């Protein structure tokens, strides 16, 4: 029997999962919104973050919360290096070139990971126990993962709207030529944006281990890429905060629709959950082809 407590519990679980989906997607929108680059190797950066979390825990005993900071730093550095080494050469060219470039770089990362750490799946446990929400046990790691994801997005918001660098980024998004005329170093803004985007993506990979701490292997990122593209399109593709909102909706709908479909006695509710989630995307895009939010 469905009680109000159960509905609240399932909603909270959906919100936590949704904030993580949002964080894991925000880098994709950031890259496309500012540099017009579709990061088709997105999942490989998530994979790098998951490995950082694993090795930090296995070798140093560091929990994923701490290793996510290191993961951000690694992603940030990769973003700068990638921009100056590859992206700056194809910027302004057809979007297909950058799409293929990032796809190839994603495969390169997968194979480097396999060469370095083998293809054997790895896992670890950071058991913090669970808390009781209206009579239902909910794991603390997931709660922490959800809350930290939300905090990171809040920090990003403050950075973009309350700092000089953030203003520079937004001015480049609006009008790169105008921003350049006003003295903004557009190339530097692009490099910084890619660094932040990849930093967030790699950090989300580290935080993903708070939700799924097993099955860490070189090819684990592929499903993240597919899901991130769906969420980013729903959110508006060029809008990082639209992506976050879409991720949140995605998580809530996934969990709540399961409950509703179970009530309706549908044979396999989870199959229908996916159908409903993607049907919702279609519906939203029919009503708002630009997605939930604009940039």
């Amino acid at each position: 029997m469905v009680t109000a407590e159960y509905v609240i519990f399932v909603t909270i679980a959906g919100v936590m999962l949704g904030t993580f989906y949002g964080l894991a997607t925000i880098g994709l929108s950031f890259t496309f919104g500012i540099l017009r680059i579709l990061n088709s190797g997105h999942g490989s950066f998530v994979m790098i973050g998951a490995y950082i979390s694993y090795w930090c825990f296995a070798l140093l005993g560091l929990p994923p919360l701490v290793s996510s900071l290191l993961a951000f730093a690694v992603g940030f550095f990769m973003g700068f290096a990638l921009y100056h080494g590859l992206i700056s050469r194809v910027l302004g060219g057809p979007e297909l070139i950058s799409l293929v470039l990032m796809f190839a770089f994603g495969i390169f990362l997968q194979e480097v990971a396999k060469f370095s750490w083998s293809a054997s799946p790895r896992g670890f446990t950071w058991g913090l126990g669970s808390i009781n929400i209206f009579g239902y046990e909910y794991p603390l790691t997931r709660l922490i993962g959800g809350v930290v994801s939300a905090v990171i997005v809040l920090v990003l918001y403050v950075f973009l709207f309350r700092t000089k660098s953030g203003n520079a980024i937004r001015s480049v998004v609006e009008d790169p030529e105008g921003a350049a005329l006003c003295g903004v170093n557009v190339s530097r803004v692009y490099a910084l944006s890619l660094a932040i985007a990849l930093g967030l993506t790699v950090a989300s990979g580290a935080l993903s281990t708070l939700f799924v701490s097993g099955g860490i292997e070189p090819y684990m990122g592929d499903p993240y890429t597919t899901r991130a593209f769906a969420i980013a399109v729903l959110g508006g593709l060029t809008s990082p905060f639209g992506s976050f909102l879409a991720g949140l909706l995605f998580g809530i709908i996934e969990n709540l629709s399961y409950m509703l479909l179970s009530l309706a006695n549908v044979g396999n509710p989870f199959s229908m959950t996916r159908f409903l989630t993607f049907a919702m995307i279609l519906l939203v895009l029919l009503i708002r082809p630009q997605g939930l939010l604009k940039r």
Partner: protein
Amino acid sequence: MALKPAVIVALVLIVIVVAGLLYWYFVVAPPKPTEEIPDKITVGLTLGLSGSYSYASHQGLWGIQAAIKWINEVYGGIKIGNKAVKIELKYYDDQSNKELVSSLYEQLINVDKVDFLLGPYGSPLVMVAAPVAAKYNKLMINWMGTGDVIHEQGYKNLVMVSTHSSYQMRPAMEMIKTLDPNATIAVIFKEDEHNRYLARGALEEAGKLGLSVVFNKSYPVDIKDFTPIFTEMAAKKPDVIVICAHEADGILAAQQLAELNINAKLMIMGFVPSLKSFRDALGNLAEGWAGTNQWTYGASYTPSDAQALGYEWFGPTEDKFLELYNQVASPGQFPSEHAGAGAAAILVLARAIEKAQSLNQDAVRNVLNTMKLATFYGLYQIDPTTGKQIAHKEILSQWQGGRFVAIWPPEIATSRPVYPIPTWDEKRQGAQALP
């Protein structure tokens, strides 16, 4: 000078006879059996050495190489006539990509001229490779494409050495029936072909044995949260939870059962509990988890098992296999079921060639139809019509006191099953599942 009519007739007859003999010799007469025994037998396959099948494919490759090492260096080569012929392996990386498989198998057959084929790793890829082998009438030993449907397509030259998906959970049901005939069961499975068949087999066997299934639901392939489905299942209070899963989702499922504090008298998963990452991820919470495997080190068949069961023994013992495996595998690796299956494929093929005393595809296939063989990996016997494996049995193992030990079938079990297993809270306090 005019010839006599009799001479003319005789000459015509002679010409006709000679022409007839020439026609018979060059056109009609069957070629003499000129099969020359080559110096080596080449076996070809593709493997997903990169891409999502990388782990299993590497394991399979090392198993295949270890078995070839045994045949060439320990056994002395395949005995055909007076010759001892060595096996040579030819393989390509199919990148776990079925789009590449077809052309690579064409290349193995037409360019590399391999004598026999092994299938790639994974049912979706075997589904692509099998028609190519059929097109050229090449024998293909399928070692790890366990989808039942592959062998229901009418490919006459496809032979399986491992248990098909729909049979993998059946021994688990047998064991439950023996331990607790009144047990209630929940079955949860991933929505992919392999796990769907796994669950179907479990449900069929449970029905046959009169076990009560109180919950039966699937979950999507990219699941990140089991909370809704587990919460619903917990209300049914099953005695046994059966999960048909792959690595990441299987570990997630086990972790979430622990986090949600959902207990059962026994929890069984496919092959996932046998993985090191499962134990790493769960620590002591892995205690009591049971998993099914095609093969696991420590629960191998031996020559005496083979004799007792009426099967011919062939190949290395488990320890010898491990020794050879360590010579070919990357440092720090330990043979998984995939390695065992790869090795079994080579051993079965080698013994069939010996028995056929020929490299003729049909002759070897005919031997494979009736051959009953035991290797360290298990038993081999097929249904001649479909090539499906009918003798090899899944092994059920359980985490007991930090070791993953074989508990079923009884003939090769090294420990008794623990039932009921400790609760999550007990395991958090350090309790182990000890018989």
